[in-house]
């Protein structure tokens, strides 16, 4: 957390994670080259390698883009999210290999600088089928490079969270560029329906998953807006919140995580200070609200991280009346201690 970036270190889970990632990448590249040459003995090595790296990177990007919505739909996928950064960096390395080899192969040793050649060697902007596809890959690679280099938490604090998050939302721009790079590039010359079918299925999968997961979010946000300032809003029944867990509710457009623990109820602003993870999908561990994404912790009553950490989220005043949970519509400044609402065991069964 905020203080010691190396605190997490290389524990067993991280090693398993990276081991599986590396193994899968090597399996893919080896499988692609092996089966590719077995079925295409006339192939050239450079083309086969460029294709293995390009498709490998795009496949990995599909995995990366699936993690967010999958975790929303089924929390058992959360372990994938924890080290998502490693997936991103690995994907960038594959894409960089593909882009570098392509730039050498198609643009180096000529009469122009390779990067100039990359941008000017095809000028058919007037025709979709002939439209230059390599610059699309190049711009995508620049986005991926920015994301990979700033992926460490160190940069999160330097850039400030909103800038960092905006930068990392560009992954969707990169994805769109890469899809067009493939559609306007290799799919103009490769005719197998397996290839266009695979890309189509991938795009549908990413879209579909985001829509399904997004729907759930929208349901939370659909609660009526326009509440009076300082009024208490009835958000749910006490038994809607499992013990040591939270329910995410929307109050006047803002998401609030309402936790129940040890006969008490506390409400915090839902977005985690680290990377906007949904605190309300986390749980109470050792008396602290624990973010499901990377495990940042906050005191439920004050929204402040325990010493020595300094993260703070806004808190909300809460009341429990006849088994209903009431949350005040306006937040308290981040880190403000609010007395938790208490209730008797009987109220749960009201």
């Amino acid at each position, binding site marked *: 957390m905020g203080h010691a970036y190396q605190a997490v270190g290389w524990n067993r889970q991280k090693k398993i994670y990276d081991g599986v990632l590396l193994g899968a990448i090597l399996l893919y590249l080896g499988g692609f080259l092996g089966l590719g040459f077995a079925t295409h003995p006339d192939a050239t090595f450079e*083309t086969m390698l460029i294709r293995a790296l390009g498709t490998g990177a795009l496949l990995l990007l599909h995995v990366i883009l699936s993690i967010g919505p999958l975790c929303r739909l089924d929390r058992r996928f959360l372990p994938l999210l924890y080290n998502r950064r490693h997936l991103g960096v690995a994907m960038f390395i594959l894409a960089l290999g593909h882009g570098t080899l392509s730039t050498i192969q198609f643009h180096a040793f000529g009469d122009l600088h390779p990067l100039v050649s990359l941008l000017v060697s095809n000028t058919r902007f007037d025709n979709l089928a002939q439209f230059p596809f390599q610059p699309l890959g190049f711009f995508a690679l620049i986005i991926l490079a920015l994301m990979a280099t700033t992926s460490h938490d160190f940069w999160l604090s330097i850039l400030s969270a909103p800038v960092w998050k905006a930068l990392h939302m560009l992954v969707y721009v990169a994805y769109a560029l890469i899809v067009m790079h493939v559609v306007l590039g290799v799919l103009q010359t490769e005719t197998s329906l397996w290839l266009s079918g695979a890309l189509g299925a991938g795009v549908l999968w990413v879209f579909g998953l985001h829509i399904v997961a997004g729907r759930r979010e929208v349901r939370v946000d659909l609660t009526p807006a326009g509440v009076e300032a300082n009024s208490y809003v009835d958000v749910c029944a006490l038994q809607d919140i499992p013990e040591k867990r939270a329910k995410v509710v929307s109050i006047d457009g803002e998401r609030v995580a309402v936790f129940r623990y040890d006969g008490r109820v506390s409400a915090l602003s839902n977005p985690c200070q680290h990377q906007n993870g949904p605190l309300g999908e986390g749980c109470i561990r050792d008396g602290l609200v624990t973010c499901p994404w990377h495990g940042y912790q906050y005191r439920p009553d004050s929204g402040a991280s325990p010493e020595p950490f300094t993260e703070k989220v806004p808190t909300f005043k809460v009341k429990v009346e006849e088994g209903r949970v009431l949350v005040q519509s306006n937040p308290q400044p981040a880190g403000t201690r609010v007395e938790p609402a208490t209730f008797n065991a009987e109220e749960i069964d009201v």
Partner: protein
Amino acid sequence: MSDPKQEFYVGYLPQAPHGLGRFLKAGILMLLLGTVVAAAILSMAQSPYSKAKFEFGVSSILEGRIEELPFPTLMVPREGGGDSRYLLTVFGKKGADEAVAGFAGKRVRVRGTLIYHDQLTMVELGPAAIEVLAPATAEPDASDGTVAGGGAWTQTGAGVERSLIGEIVDSKCYLGVMKPGNLKTHRACATRCISGGVPPVLMVRDEHGLATYFLLTSSSGGSVGRQIVDRGLVAEPVRISGEVVRFGDLLVLKADPETYQRLD
């Protein structure tokens, strides 16, 4: 916490909860399986690669006579009489004009790497790959090794007017240095090669898919590479009408590049 859906994973703890661990193990197996399936589908679904050949890393030695106009070539005597005409190139996206300067019309020994496809052969020269030989005694000789015929190609028979539809490719990549060496994915590379002086070729396929290759020159036999690049006519269908002339093994299509037509 026996229901894995209720178990809570914290990445910085050494061990994942038990039920979740089982879910993850199954997930990892699925992932590895999916990886193999994806690699198989994507690698096996590639179109066939051409039979073109670049003997990368293999050096051959050839003897013959350099003829440099309109394109640098080596005339290699054939066993049954006559000559084979091999196109010459150098490393990179570059023509061999500089490399053969001063050798026109001379009998030489060259060291290089063979590139061949269908009826065309090319030799990629290494650095300082050309060595002048003493003229064979039977030939009308000049003391510097120059033999009769000079540096220009000798036309075989009369030319004919033709109008041909095909794709402009760069001879080097298409003959085998790159696969695929034509169409859109190769367009930028072909543009650089032709811009750098690699001989441009019109590839024309007949109804059986068999390819015939026509080296492209202007009506007067000059280079047309610059105009082809400036007009962006590489790697897509074009129609060229002009005079087809045979030079031994090779066909040349002479036409003013301003008259090449793009067929969209």
